[in-house]
């Protein structure tokens, strides 16, 4: 069996080994390499306990045997191979399953509470432990999207968007568990499918865009729900339904649409800055400020990564292919620049690392029906909801040092 000269290195000081070349069998796989590292660490530090590692060769995760991987990547086997190793991302553990009365259309969680929108025309607030705290009822039709706006101590502001063409702004006091509708936002001429709040200002500035370009400006009668608000600005330009919006920063808005484009808008002027053109309908987009990439889920099987800053509007950086149905939801990890989670109509939630674009890190097959929404919080929690009326939460253990890498 042929041997390869390898050199191991890591950014994590805790697990660093001596910078000397090792001769490793070419056919060795991840498990064997992991054992080698563990042996080395044990020799260095007696109290070391067994840890699973993952290995990267030139920025790509090792998934097959070392020789196969190097052949596929076209790396010369003559030189010393530099292999980076990181602590393996452990499989997300299912934690809670929250039953709803109907399909879950959207989920957003922050460090304390989970907010879900459902097809039973209500939104719900849950504690992280899976206890239903509050039911937000007020819409006359399906709630399509929800968002937290701001939290001042015990009072939080939240938004719900619905098929009845309105967005409601609610004020919720978590201590007294009291809910008050503050405003009703009107202006859309179709169902409101998506909302996004400005993450930096966290004021009551919300932006939403939806279907037909000709929208009525007529102010309707204020109903009992609260003061009616009309849009500050309308961003019109998409030819078809807008499926997803988000704030890149406080000046830029990004929207994905069924007309196969992702557009970047200037929030001040309301003009289009960049248009990224794809070939399929976009279902959902997500932006990671850590790696400054957009991830899009579309009606083919791929999760695509885009660079929103690039001048060349059609540049697809990478596509992550493993789903077998439409990708309905994508979400970047809030604290890791390489990881994202995606949900698809094939009932699977997949956890991806962009350094391994052929195969996902983990497949989560908890759902029995279509997955419609996913979320990922800072508090080590991943969430996914779908057409089986269940909201699943998964806990994972992130290695702190790796997150900073």
């Amino acid at each position, binding site marked *: 069996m042929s041997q390869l000269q390898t050199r191991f290195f890591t950014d994590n000081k805790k697990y660093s080994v001596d910078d000397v070349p090792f001769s490793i069998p070419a056919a060795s796989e991840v498990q064997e390499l992991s054992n080698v590292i563990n042996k080395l660490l044990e020799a260095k530090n007696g109290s070391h306990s067994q840890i699973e590692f993952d290995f990267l060769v030139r920025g790509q995760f090792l998934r097959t045997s070392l020789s196969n991987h190097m052949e596929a990547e076209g790396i010369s086997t003559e030189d010393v191979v530099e292999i980076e190793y990181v602590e393996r991302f452990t499989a997300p553990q299912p934690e809670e399953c929250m039953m709803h009365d109907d*399909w879950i259309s959207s989920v957003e969680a922050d460090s304390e509470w989970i907010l879900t929108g459902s097809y039973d025309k209500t939104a719900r607030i849950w504690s992280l432990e899976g206890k239903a705290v509050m039911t937000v009822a007020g819409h006359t039709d*399906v709630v399509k999207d929800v968002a937290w706006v701001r939290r001042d101590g015990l009072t939080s502001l939240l938004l719900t968007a619905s098929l009845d063409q309105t967005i409601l702004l609610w004020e919720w006091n978590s201590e007294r568990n009291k809910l008050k509708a503050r405003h009703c936002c009107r202006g859309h001429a179709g169902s409101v499918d998506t909302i996004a709040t400005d993450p930096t200002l966290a004021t009551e500035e919300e932006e939403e865009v939806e*279907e037909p370009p000709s929208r009525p400006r007529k102010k309707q009668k204020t109903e009992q729900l609260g003061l009616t608000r009309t849009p500050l600005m309308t961003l019109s330009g998409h030819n*078809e339904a807008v499926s997803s919006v988000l704030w890149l920063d406080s000046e830029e808005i990004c929207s994905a649409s*069924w007309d196969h484009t992702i557009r970047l808008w200037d929030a001040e002027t309301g003009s289009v800055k960049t248009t990224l053109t794809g070939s399929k309908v976009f279902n959902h987009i997500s932006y990671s400020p850590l790696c400054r990439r957009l991830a899009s889920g579309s009606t083919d099987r791929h999760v695509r990564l885009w660079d929103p800053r690039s001048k060349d509007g059609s540049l697809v950086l990478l596509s992550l292919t493993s789903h077998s149905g439409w990708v309905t939801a994508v979400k970047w990890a809030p604290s890791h620049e390489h990881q994202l989670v995606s949900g698809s109509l094939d009932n699977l939630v997949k956890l991806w690392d962009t350094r391994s674009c052929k195969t996902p890190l983990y497949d989560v097959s908890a759902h029995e029906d279509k997955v419609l929404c996913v979320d990922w919080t800072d508090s080590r929690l991943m969430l996914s909801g779908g*057409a089986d009326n269940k909201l699943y939460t998964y806990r994972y253990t992130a290695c702190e040092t790796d997150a900073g890498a």
Partner: protein
Amino acid sequence: PLPPLPRPHPAKGIHKCRKMGQDIRNTVGNVPMEWYQDYPHIGYNLDGKKIFKPIRNKDELDEFLDKMENPDYWRTVHDKMTASDIRLTDEQVDLVHRLQKGQFGDVNFNEYEPSVDFFTNEVMIHPVTNRPQDKRSFIPSLIEKEKVSKLVHAIKMGWIKPRKPKETTPQYYDLWAKEDPNAILGRHKMHVPAPKMRLPGHEESYNPPPEYLLTEEERLVWEQQDAEDRKLPFLPQKHSCLRAVPAFSRFIHERFERCLDLYLCPRQRKMRVNVNPEDLIPKLPKPKDLQPFPTTMSLVYRGHTSLVRCISASPTGQWLVSGSDDFTVRFWEVNTGRCMKTLEVGGAVKSVAWNPNPAVCLVAVCFEHTVLLLNPSLGDRLVVSSTDQLITAYEPPEEDKEQAVTWALSEGLEHNKGHRLTLTHPKAVKQVVWHGKGDYLSSVMPDNSSNLQVLIHQVSKRRTQNPFRKNKGLVQCVSFHPLRPYFFVATQRYVRVYNLIKQELTKKLMTNCKWISSMAIHPGGDNLICGSYDCRLAWFDLDLSTKPYKMLRHHKKALRGVAYHRNYPLFASGADDGSVIVCHGMVYNDLLQNPLIVPVKVLKGHQITHDLGVLDVTFHPTQPWVFSSGADTTIRLFT
């Protein structure tokens, strides 16, 4: 020059003159008589007196009368010399006749008199001449001697050689001398060896192994087969020893067959034109160059409990309506597959149609004798309320005309369910279809016995009219032209195109199908596809011909639904074999270029239940997606 001397004229002139007793012979001689044209005389007689021209005043008429009346006209000749008409006598006529026949002029001349030889062949006692013989006849000729001596000299000198004796052996030459010995000749190339006889095998043995012996059933089969179909021309038989083998009874027969084989063996190879089957297929672009088109099944809309007969997509593409045999109409959200609404109606839903006008939110549903206009209350609230206003704003006309259907406004509970208008027809309705503007609506009541098969309704005025006076056959489906005021009516075998403004038949399309099931009009309006129950799909180019431009036989079973895409060059057909076939159908603006039709994808997914597969297909209005509804109670979205 002087005129030649006068000469006596031919005999007839002399005879004539003598008979007349007066000699009027002209003495001018053989000169052209034109010379005397301008003179009063024509010549001179023997006495030197002028012969004057006779006064002739005969004109053409007189000539003609003369010709008719004068019995001797035929024997009258004109004498140029005297300018007088002479009547020929019988003798003269006789002479002319004889000369014409090539006989002698004299009647008495005998041209067959026996000849008398001048000399006889017998030697007489007196010679003819008594001349003595010349000296030269006694002495040898000097000239001859000279010639002979010259020849002798030439022979001596060897100038003249004796003639070679003629060769008696026959001469041959090589016919193939010029042939290239290495060339492959036609007769070598075409060499066909005589067929060889098959060598005898084990079954021909007098004592074959038992596995070669036929069993009783095999023998019966062998006996019943035709001689040509038999695998073996004889029955293998087992004999205990060679001595027991009888004489071969088929010997003569077998020799004869062998002779026939040799005699009938082809002596020349037949030249077959080898056509590569690939070359016969027309050059079509590859399907992957014709993207986008639906390729995979993405969503399944479950909820119906019986077969889903009809589907229709909303003009915005956000909603889908379906009608089923479980007496319900369901409204679906396209991108999630969520059933937003279920409406019970009083019968199996035969057809649904979403109003194509985006400013109106109405769905036409037909079941049994009823066409129901529903407001699904999906989409923009303003559109929904303006649709309701449009329906309630109707003011009944002053004079009430008798209409073929009764229009009823729904109220109360039914209104809350979404029912708006109910049109009760006299017969069972099979299809409803909207005009592109969304105000007119047509319903089909197939019935072969009356002319009340197709009705056109106007929703805003609540009027109904029957456009046809005559019954032209069982109507299968109808459709409005997307742009012009034309109306397409498909009967069992023909599609008729009517001009609604002129109220006349514009075109009659022969589909060559046995029974049309469905029809769709290209959004440009110049092309049409027809699906039929005999597995065919006919594409018509209305500008080209009334016969199908292309006939597609891709489906294995009866077609149930066909559809065109509004923007993309796509069309789809669904059939009982459970598949949806998507084809690229590009129509060019250039009139010279025929439409390009390329089948691009077969979409499978529906299960076949009760021998029914896909019942309806429709495209998403904006995306290259196709919906299909099937007998397996599902609707599927292919993207």
